[in-house]
């Protein structure tokens, strides 16, 4: 029997998800042995025309990482969708928009202004901005269009499964590949990670008080965090209560609070709202009835850049996105 065809593709991403596949180490040999990799721009020299040559639906699965920012990415993921039986959104950026999705606090115009005109490292006296078409010495050159907005993969094509994380850890990748090869997949649309909160599996959970109350918010660079004590209880904002488990508590084990890259648990439509909600609940909980409005304002004011913090990985997937996007601009 022919081996199942598998494709990997990257969109707006950092390359870490590609690294995660390589991080399968010797396990990757088993995967490579069991499948026929037909497309993987970072590692293999296949072209778009090679993908086009496959029959529609004949690629068993495409793992696509990165958010969708350009016309080229949109075209490629639509092509891969057509050719593939299954599409897995691989990693935080494809799943929720991820770090590239934070660019949605701005739009194309302001990004171009900043990057090509205002940034101090620029020498662009003509104020030239990227063009999709330009003629140089009588030759026509083209560039993909830079869209106004960063989108999650499922805002562009139909997605079958999600492998969360920045980047997804090897055990979950291997689990997903095995499930696909053995045809033991959960219902369509599932996130291939445990449906528990990170706190449930966090090694510091034992030191998390029953009732957390924060009299002050601190930032990681301001204190030397105790690696043995729940970060929230130390006054550091940790997204663990509103984040899905499955990463292996990587940040926690590196003495850093969680920033939510695994996204929310099932049923939550807006991870930022959940983070906001639990933080507001525990801020100044102890003695709340004695606090004046000014004191509450000062405490809440200690949370720096709340929108950026709460939507660290999920802005494009949020309910509000941003005004321009909602208006379809």
């Amino acid at each position: 029997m022919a081996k199942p065809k598998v494709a990997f593709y990257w969109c707006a991403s950092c390359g870490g998800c590609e690294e995660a596949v390589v991080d399968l180490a010797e396990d990757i040999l088993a995967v490579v042995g069991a499948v026929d990799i037909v497309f993987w721009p970072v590692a293999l020299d296949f072209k778009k025309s090679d993908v086009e040559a496959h029959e529609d639906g004949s690629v068993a699965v495409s793992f696509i990482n990165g958010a969708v920012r350009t016309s080229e990415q949109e075209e490629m993921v639509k092509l891969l969708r057509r050719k593939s039986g299954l599409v897995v959104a691989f990693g935080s950026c494809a799943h929720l928009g991820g770090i590239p999705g934070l660019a949605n606090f701005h739009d194309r115009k302001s990004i171009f202004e900043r990057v090509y005109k205002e940034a101090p490292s620029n020498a662009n006296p003509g104020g030239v901005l990227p063009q999709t078409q330009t003629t140089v010495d009588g030759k026509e050159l083209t560039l993909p269009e830079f869209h106004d907005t960063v989108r999650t993969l499922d805002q562009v094509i139909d997605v079958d499964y999600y492998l969360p994380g920045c980047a997804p850890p090897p055990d979950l990748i291997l689990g997903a590949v095995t499930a696909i090869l053995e045809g033991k997949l959960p219902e369509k649309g599932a996130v291939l990670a445990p449906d528990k909160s990170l706190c449930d599996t966090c090694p510091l959970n034992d030191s998390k008080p029953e009732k957390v109350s924060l009299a002050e918010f601190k930032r990681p660079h301001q204190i030397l965090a105790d690696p043995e004590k729940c970060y929230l209880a130390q006054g550091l904002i940790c997204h663990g209560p509103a984040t899905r488990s499955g990463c292996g508590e990587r940040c926690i084990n590196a003495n850093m609070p969680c920033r939510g890259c695994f996204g929310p648990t099932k049923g939550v439509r807006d991870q930022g709202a959940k983070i906001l909600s639990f933080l507001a609940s525990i801020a100044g909980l102890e003695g709340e009835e004695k606090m004046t409005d000014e004191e509450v304002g000062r405490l809440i004011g200690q949370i720096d850049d709340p929108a950026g913090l709460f939507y660290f990985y999920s802005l494009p997937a949020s309910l509000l996105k941003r005004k321009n996007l909602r208006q379809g601009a």
Partner: protein
Amino acid sequence: MGVTTEGKPAAEEKSLRPKVLVFCCNWSTYPGFQLSRLGEGDEGDREPIIITMCTGRLDPELILEAFSRGAWGVFVAGCPPDECEHNGNYKTRRRILLLKKTLGPLGVEPERLALEWVSTGESAKLAKLVGDFTARVAQLGPL
């Protein structure tokens, strides 16, 4: 949390009547407020009300959803904190404040969200507050 019969979409898309959603506490502000609005004309002409069991139960996700579905403004009426039987309103105070700080970068002016404390029996005050809020939101226009 239940949606009253008034929870149907307000007015026509075309008429530029501001779409304001009011969250009211079931145990205090809601009954009086509802009575005070009897005889005010068509239900469809008024701000839809969603009853909460306590504003402390009002999930910020619902407020964001209201905005994402076209509300021009969201008004939350809760019992004054020391009158709340569940101590939920201290939480609400912090949540709304933090929401207001978060809305701006998401493209929603913070003034589109209001929290006011209203005691049982102060339905006239509430009606006025909602009226004033609606007027302010009308100035801002749709989202």
